[in-house]
């Protein structure tokens, strides 16, 4: 297979849909559950991760022939940490409120296994362009996953969407949705929905034989 034949769209959609980091691979759960209290937080986290993912995968891919196999993880981490630091300062400069809301989870992008996984599994074996396209797909997929959680949790937990009040003044917030258990419940509900959808698309019956014990 030579470089010109890459199916770029497929490569991109791989991360958005078939290998979605949140809903299919269930990776990077720490930020997924912790910062998705509101849709804005979720999008910011997603975009920050997307940026780090694309840049570091591109650099890892460029350096793939120079990197000795024995120290490759250390090299990846240094590359990722560089971009994370840049994102960290950028967010701090753009909006301090957002920076406080995301807390330590921006720095923790360094150890997000989606990024290290992409670097190890894809970027280290492919030329820069396909590696970056694949990484961009993963990043977009991750952002969509975070947004799906953030929207539900913000609507139920605060009655707002992107900060705009949806129900007027008398809304009763569901306190549990802003708490960690709410994150688990919403994630579980989305996983359920997506697996049901995937089964339907594959033509499998949604109904399984009831277990008899």
């Amino acid at each position, binding site marked *: 297979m030579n470089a010109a034949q890459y199916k770029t769209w497929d490569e991109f959609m791989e991360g958005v849909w078939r290998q979605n980091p949140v809903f299919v691979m269930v990776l990077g759960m720490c930020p997924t559950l912790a910062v998705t209290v509101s849709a804005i937080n979720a999008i910011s986290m997603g975009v920050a991760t997307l940026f780090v993912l694309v840049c570091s995968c591109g650099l890892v891919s460029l350096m793939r022939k120079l990197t000795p196999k024995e120290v490759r993880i250390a090299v990846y981490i240094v590359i990722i940490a560089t971009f994370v630091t840049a994102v960290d300062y950028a967010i701090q400069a753009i909006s301090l409120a957002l920076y406080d809301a995301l807390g330590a989870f921006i720095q923790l992008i360094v150890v997000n296994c989606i990024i290290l996984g992409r670097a190890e599994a894809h970027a280290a074996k492919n030329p820069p362009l396909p590696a970056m396209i694949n990484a961009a797909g993963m990043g977009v997929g991750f952002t969509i996953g975070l947004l799906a959680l953030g929207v539900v949790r913000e609507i139920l937990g605060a009655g707002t969407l992107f900060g705009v009040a949806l*129900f007027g003044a*008398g809304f*009763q917030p*569901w*306190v*549990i949705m802003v*708490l960690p258990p709410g994150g688990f419940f919403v994630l579980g509900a989305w996983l359920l929905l997506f697996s049901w959808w995937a089964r339907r698309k594959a033509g499998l019956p*949604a109904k399984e034989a009831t*277990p*008899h014990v």
Partner: protein
Amino acid sequence: MNSAPIEIRSAPHVQSTKTVETIMRNVVYSLLPICAFYVFQYGISALASIAVVTGICLLTERFFVRTGTQAGRLSDYSAVITGLLLALTLPPGFPLWMGAVAGMVAIALGKALFGGIGFNVFNPALVGRAFVQAAFPTAIATYTPSFLPGRFTEFIPSTLAWPLMIPAEPTAWLKAKNLDALAGATPLAKWKFDGVIANADELLTSLSGHMAVGPSPMLILLCGAYLASRRYMDWRIPLAVLGSAALTAWLLFAFDPARYPNPFFMLFSGGLILGAVYMATDMATSPVTPKGMWVYGALIGLLTVVIRYYSGLPEGVMYAILIANAASPLIEKVTQPIPFGRGVLDRAKKRATYPLNPGYISREEASAVTPKKRFLPNKPKK
């Protein structure tokens, strides 16, 4: 019947006429007087709450049974029990839409996700209540006094809150009835936050209408006694729960009577009686071994008193039962009865011999051939 096929199955062969449906139906019967008295105490708000919560439980159950996600049938009455119990644990003026959320979560999260009746790890009604307790902490702590005048003609204002909206505060409504806002506090909340201990007749009846006691404890004990006498419920669990709670409370009371309330107050306030008789005895979530039942009940009683005394919450029965539910597989494992002839430490008794006399082995077994292991050929790769 003579054309019925011969069925070969392993032990136990003793059959009982008790089916799941009979047991559940009798539990529902025994709950009806309690619900009736509850409605008499709190009026149409309580009636609406019971009807809506039970209805939503049944609808959710129907959905999951229809889509094949969970075992069981709608007619086995288990969803009715969940609904009635859930409604009895909620405040009478609980907004109906929150009650509906609780009922849906109880069946969907507490039961259907585990596979339906008999598969659930936690008591479904308590799962629903724990969810709304975490989601709407203010509404679930807002009680109104029982035996209010005009309770059969007018709703408690918070009952009819619009979906997703904050329910009305009952303070102004109670003032119009010449009652102060504190009249609505439960006995436990009064004790926890104001240091007032209710006296016995107030706890048992609350006929003066100044106390928000939940469903009547005496009636629950009576109905529980009916269930236990008909063997639809094991008497060990409620006895262990109440005994251990009373013992813990009594020890603390004897230690420092000024600081800790008397054991009678601990037993008859809040939901301890309801929890002990109806929630802890849920067959799917409690141990089956007799010794395990004692351990399980004692754990609930102890945890309840500990949570009530030493946590920020006034009531602890719900979390105590949920924790004990989670522990019940472990309790079952360590309380397995020892088969006859075995020593305590799981080895054969000294000098006891069990000769493998061929006479003991049935002919089929003696000539049985162990089937050889068959290896499936590897699947052809596509």
